[in-house]
């Protein structure tokens, strides 16, 4: 052994000296480079400085040692084949170390930056980090294969085709993700906004994910809008936070069917006589059904008693008096019935019975049977209320304004009651309560109420 060392001491010493020299230079260079970088990065106040320097400090030293080993082998007495083999091994170690360092650095930097993006919940941090890891690992593996002279072209081809297939198969998803980034980056919407889409869908934004926006509609449905669609459509956003009602307003609708009573009057005396005894639902029908039947007319024809007296009995004076009965003045059907009877009786006492209706033109007493059922629409605040009001049927509007007020003996419309009791919106409640609904078409009434509320929440 001693003999061998004596004979070959130079062949051992030279590579060892070269390696040690690199070791010393590495310690010096690491300090110098790190100090320089530290100073440089301190000036630009980069938050990734510490992570970057720590990573560089460790890796730089490793790379210097690998370089030292490579140089030592090159000056050694190893055969050309041995030199080439160890060169490849050292090259491979360098590539692995570099890949590891880049992955490690990228992961830590990504965490910093992804945390800084506003809509964090939207971004799948783990997914992005994993994608970066895989990308660098793939690149590292390709370089390693190249070092060991293994053909990489087929692998690159397979990977490219695979990537294309994935992109094509999930192009909608990718569009959604990119749109999601756009949504996250911008200030287009945020959770809690009230949005109205071009398609007519609307509601509060309840969640924003990478793939879609979740909207809670006023009829308690969850609408999922893909991000890509959302960024392309026209949306109206109402951001002003509105006061929530103590109790939500549930919209009902009322539909009615006509039931014949079998009673009919041929003249005014018979009209009064029957009118005294019929149920409230009959009086209600003949003083209200025109509101729906002629909802497109303004002013609407007066009550049916006035119409019949004019068209069939031909007593225009009485017809005018009956037309002039202001239904809005009465809070019960009983009072309204008394008024109609009083007006006809007054006429009978002064001018007698007048004409008798021809056969087939008698006044038929009809009863209104109402079916009341809930709609899916609920409003928790004024914004939701006004948006639902735009789309409920006129039957629903009719129910809350007319039916509740008079037939169900509530004295005032449902909207005003809710606005006052559940939202403390006294002024708005009063403004709607004093509207005389008999002076509007139902669509006209809808428009006026919407305007009043819009004015309030502007």
């Amino acid at each position, binding site marked *: 052994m001693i003999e061998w060392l004596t004979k070959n001491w130079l062949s051992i010493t030279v590579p060892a000296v070269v390696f040690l020299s690199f070791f010393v230079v590495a310690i010096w260079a690491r300090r110098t480079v790190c100090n320089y970088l530290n100073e440089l990065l301190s000036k630009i106040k980069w938050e990734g400085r510490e992570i970057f320097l720590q990573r560089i400090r460790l890796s730089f030293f490793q790379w210097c040692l690998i370089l030292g080993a490579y140089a030592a082998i090159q000056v050694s007495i190893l055969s050309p084949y041995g030199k080439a083999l160890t060169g490849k091994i050292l090259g491979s170690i360098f590539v692995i170390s570099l890949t590891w360092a880049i992955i490690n650095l990228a992961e830590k930097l990504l965490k910093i930056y992804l945390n800084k993006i506003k809509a964090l919940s939207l971004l799948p941090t783990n997914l992005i980090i994993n994608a970066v890891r895989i990308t660098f690992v793939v690149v590292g593996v390709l370089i390693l294969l190249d070092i060991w002279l293994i053909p990489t072209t087929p692998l690159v081809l397979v990977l490219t085709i695979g990537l294309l297939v994935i992109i094509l198969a999930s192009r909608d998803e990718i569009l959604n993700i990119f749109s999601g980034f756009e949504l996250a980056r911008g200030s287009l919407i945020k959770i809690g906004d009230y949005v109205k889409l071009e398609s007519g869908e609307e509601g509060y934004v309840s969640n924003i994910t990478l793939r879609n926006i979740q909207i809670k509609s006023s009829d308690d449905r969850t609408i999922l809008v893909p991000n890509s669609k959302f960024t392309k459509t026209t949306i109206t956003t109402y951001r002003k936070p509105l006061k929530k009602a103590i109790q939500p307003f549930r919209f009902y609708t009322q539909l009615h069917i*006509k039931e014949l009573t079998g009673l009919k009057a041929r003249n005014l005396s018979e009209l009064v006589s029957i009118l005294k005894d019929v149920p409230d639902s009959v009086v209600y029908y003949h003083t209200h059904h025109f509101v729906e039947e002629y909802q497109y*007319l303004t002013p609407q024809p007066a009550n049916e008693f006035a119409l019949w007296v004019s068209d069939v009995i031909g007593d225009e004076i009485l017809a005018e008096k009956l037309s002039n009965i202001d239904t809005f003045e009465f809070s019960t059907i009983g009072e309204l019935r008394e008024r109609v009877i009083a007006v006809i009786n007054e006429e009978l006492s002064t001018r007698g019975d007048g004409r008798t209706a021809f056969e087939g033109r008698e006044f038929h007493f009809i009863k209104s049977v109402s079916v009341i059922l809930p709609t899916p629409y609920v409003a928790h605040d004024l914004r939701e209320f006004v948006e639902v009001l735009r789309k409920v049927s006129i039957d629903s509007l009719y129910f809350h304004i007319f039916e509740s007020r008079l037939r169900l003996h509530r004295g005032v419309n449902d909207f005003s009651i809710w606005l006052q009791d559940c939202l403390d919106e006294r002024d708005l409640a009063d403004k709607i309560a004093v509207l005389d609904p008999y002076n509007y078409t139902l669509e006209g009434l809808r428009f006026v109420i919407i305007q009043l509320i819009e004015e309030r929440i502007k």
Partner: protein
Amino acid sequence: MEKEIFHHPKAKIQDYVPVVGRSTIEELRALAERLSGKVIQNINSTFTGGGVAEILTRMVPLLNQLGVDARWTTIKGNEEFFGVTKKFHNSLHGRKEHISSEDLSLFLEVNKKNVGELIFDGDIIFVHDPQPVALISEKKRFGEKWIWRCHIDVSNPDKRVWEFVRNFVAEYDAAVFSAPNFTQQLPIRQFLISPSIDPLSDKNKELPSEVIDSVFDKYGLDKDKPIIAQISRFDYLKDPLGVIQAFEMVRKSIDCQLILAGGTATDDPESEKVLDEVRERVSGNPDIHILLIPPESDIEINALQRAATVILQKSIKEGFGLTVTEALWKGKPVVASAVGGIQLQVKNKFTGLLCHSIEGAAYAIKRLLSNPEYADWLGKNAREHVRQNFLITRHLKDYLLLFISLYYPSDVIYL
């Protein structure tokens, strides 16, 4: 006999959204949900021909689409039986018919035979018109509720026939009539449900102007002259001679043309005679066009109605008058006699003009021809009036409400 396939035009319930609005269809669905689990069995006498079959052909599939289990069954009868029911029909309309006791026995016998053959599988049995009325004898054994739907005007019936039918009707849970003045006093609940038109049918759908122009060309009509049209079958009750007289009064002061278009009923030998009389009366007058329209010409009728400036319906007696509904739906100013169901549709000076005489009709036509803005206003109101009250969607709503209300005695029902 169960009908399995309904050859209804392709209309789907969703297709009506642009016509009546989404909320109306939503309400229909909400009502239909309340009938979940109930089977509605319609029973009439035929799957084809006649107004009832036409209504059921459209209504039953739409009810099914809404989720209601509606079915349709017909009774079987021989020619003799339908001969008797035709006489019943005429008698109930007020025409004199000789109905023997053998006829009544045959009627009962066929109904009884059908009781044995029919499968009663409905919770609500909805019987249409007098032909199957005696099936009510099975009320105790089948169904929860029985309804009799009367599609005809029984305001002035032959008393003997009505008494015979009334005995059966009184056993039902409810009866349904088309107009208040079509009814009779009955000891059961009576509902009022007007007929309807289908806005998507060939007779009522929107037409391209080329189709209307082709009808102008086909019948040699002058495009530049206002058109007064009465489109109705040739029948004395439609007063075609009165229409001609009214037109002649108008024509003295306003340059216009008249179209009298319609068909002749195969079961009415009088209609040929009426047509001959009308033709003779107008011979040589180039401004009057008498058009005999073959059956199944719905698009042509639609085009003629749309081409008209004023539509007239000067009936002496009328059922509901769906031809008036069709005219109103097309936004046309209508002049019509104040008879039958026309009064429900034409509210004088709001949705059209009512008349009571030939002179009244002439005066109303002149008012409309010389005031196109007023005519236009009436036409717009008329269309909205039909949209609100006489479309098939309203008919569906009424049927659903009817079925539901049978289970509740009160005037206000909370569901």
